[in-house]
């Protein structure tokens, strides 16, 4: 009897890399990118030590020391720290406001069709306007201070969250709502004590998903009109071609994004064990 065909290791439908081999595959693109960068950087710097385009790891580390661990000559602050806190505060305020409003509005328009008829078409209209095109309007109306930037993040993320919570509310089985009513719930009790707690983990998942867009609006707003923040900094030093600052900052932003995503994922898994998609 002939033996069955060997299971493919990498190509094709039936391949399923495991363990060490899987991890190797996972990091391979990173290693390749790192290799290409280091090689290219080395080549450029050996031709021209003043080159700014592809800084060496040492140069980037020096820049990082400067930004993160050396007080600024003018203000005495650690610039990277103040940039990070400014950006995160704006992000938190914008996304936080969008989450709370989105949850409430999505829940109420999902439950009460009268309200939905009033609000839904208008909200859809707002959602279609590209948020960045409203940015000049926001700056004109609210000035170039914090509020306009937070408002942009809010406008960029609020419609998506509302729409998803609305869909989730509509998806509740009628049986659950009827059961709640037969146990004595009023309309508001149904909304706040029965449905809203069930929507919370979904809300956190929505926040995770919209954070990518939120970072975009944050950086764009900071690039255009700000005096602090991660986006502000990288666009500021762009004029000096300071890639040795920009690349660490971008990596740091990526790291922050990754951490926030992980925090939210862990929050949902630990605190809402019953939530199984």
């Amino acid at each position: 009897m002939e033996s069955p065909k060997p299971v493919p290791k990498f190509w094709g439908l039936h391949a399923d890399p495991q363990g060490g081999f899987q991890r190797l595959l996972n990091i391979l693109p990173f290693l390749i990118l790192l290799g290409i960068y280091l090689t290219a950087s080395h080549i450029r710097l050996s031709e021209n030590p003043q080159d700014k385009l592809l800084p060496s790891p040492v140069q980037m580390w020096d820049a990082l020391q400067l930004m993160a661990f050396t007080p600024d000559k003018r203000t005495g602050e650690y610039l990277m720290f103040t940039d990070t806190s400014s950006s995160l505060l704006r992000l938190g305020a914008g996304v936080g406001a969008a989450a709370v409003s989105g949850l409430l509005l999505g829940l109420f328009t999902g439950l009460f069709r009268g309200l939905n008829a009033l609000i839904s078409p208008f909200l859809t209209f707002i959602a279609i306007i590209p948020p960045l095109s409203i940015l000049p309007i926001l700056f004109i109306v609210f000035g170039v201070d914090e509020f306009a930037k937070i408002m942009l993040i809010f406008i960029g993320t609020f419609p998506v969250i509302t729409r998803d919570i609305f869909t989730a509310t509509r998806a509740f089985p009628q049986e659950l709502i009827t059961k709640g009513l037969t146990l004595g719930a009023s309309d508001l009790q149904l909304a706040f004590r029965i449905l809203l707690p069930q929507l919370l983990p979904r809300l956190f998942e929505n926040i995770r998903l919209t954070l990518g867009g939120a970072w975009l609006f944050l950086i764009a707003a900071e690039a255009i009109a700000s005096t602090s923040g991660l986006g502000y900094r990288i666009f500021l030093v762009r004029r000096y071609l300071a890639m040795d600052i920009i690349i660490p900052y971008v990596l740091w932003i990526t790291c922050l994004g990754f951490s926030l995503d992980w925090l939210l994922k862990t929050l949902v898994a630990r605190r809402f064990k019953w939530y199984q998609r």
Partner: protein
Amino acid sequence: MVSAVNQELFQKNLLHLQDVYKSYGSKVILDNIDLSVAKGELCTVVGPSGCGKSTLLRIIVGQERASQGIVTIDQKPVSTPDRNRGIVFQKYSLFPHLSVLENVLLGKKLTMTSAEWRAQRDVCTQEAMEFLGKVRLQEHAHKYPFELSGGMQQRVSIVQTLIMKPRIVLMDEPFGALDPSTREDLQVFLLELWEEFQMTVFFVTHDLEEAAYLGTRLIVLSQHYRDERSFEGSGTNRGAKIIGDYPLERSAASTTIKGQASFQDFIAHIRREGFDPASAKHVSEFNLKHKDSFQTLTEAELKKGSRIPTP
């Protein structure tokens, strides 16, 4: 099409339906339903799939409105769902974000002010644990629904409804998704609870054995009947009527009764009557044998050669 309310039954009984029609667009689902259920009955409802049993139940609980007719509980017309009518569905029985104990206590929490709740919290918790004890789920009080089997979830759902002492408990094929032995266990539980708390139950099922075993009154809802109205097509456009209404002996709680010949004969009779289009009876000849059964037939149904009544 409304006849005078049957005052005797209306005043006497807990649940009273008269001349109830339900249609969706031009399709009539329920046709001239007359039903009066006394307090303390365990009323089971059977009928072919899609005949409208669940629709009838949803109208009683208030999730839907009848197109015509009166539906009253304690002589008051029903509107949207409230705590007088408890319900147990086949699925989505429990709130997934609450533990078993929290699920059972939910009704109490919702209907008490925060001051009342603070004062009576321990008493209520004890009561809830007692109820859970009756369905043998006390040690699972702090588990969440996703950790329970289907049968356990349905037991909690029944207790969750019962603790609020509604006037009537409606059940929509509550054991339909369970395996036969679990189903039998839950049937026994239900009977024990029904006896202890003197519940009034309206139980919809497609399982004839279950209906005949549990019920003190068995109702057959079916669209297989004849009357004098002419229908377009082959007569499958009929709305369902109550074509059978039987009082049952509530003597034995043991499930061995299911094996007896008389039991099996009765079930065979119901199956022929309600489920077999060939043995369609005339409206004037329905087996309405229960003392509370009544009919208010329209002229159209009785007079030869009349047209379809518009819903």
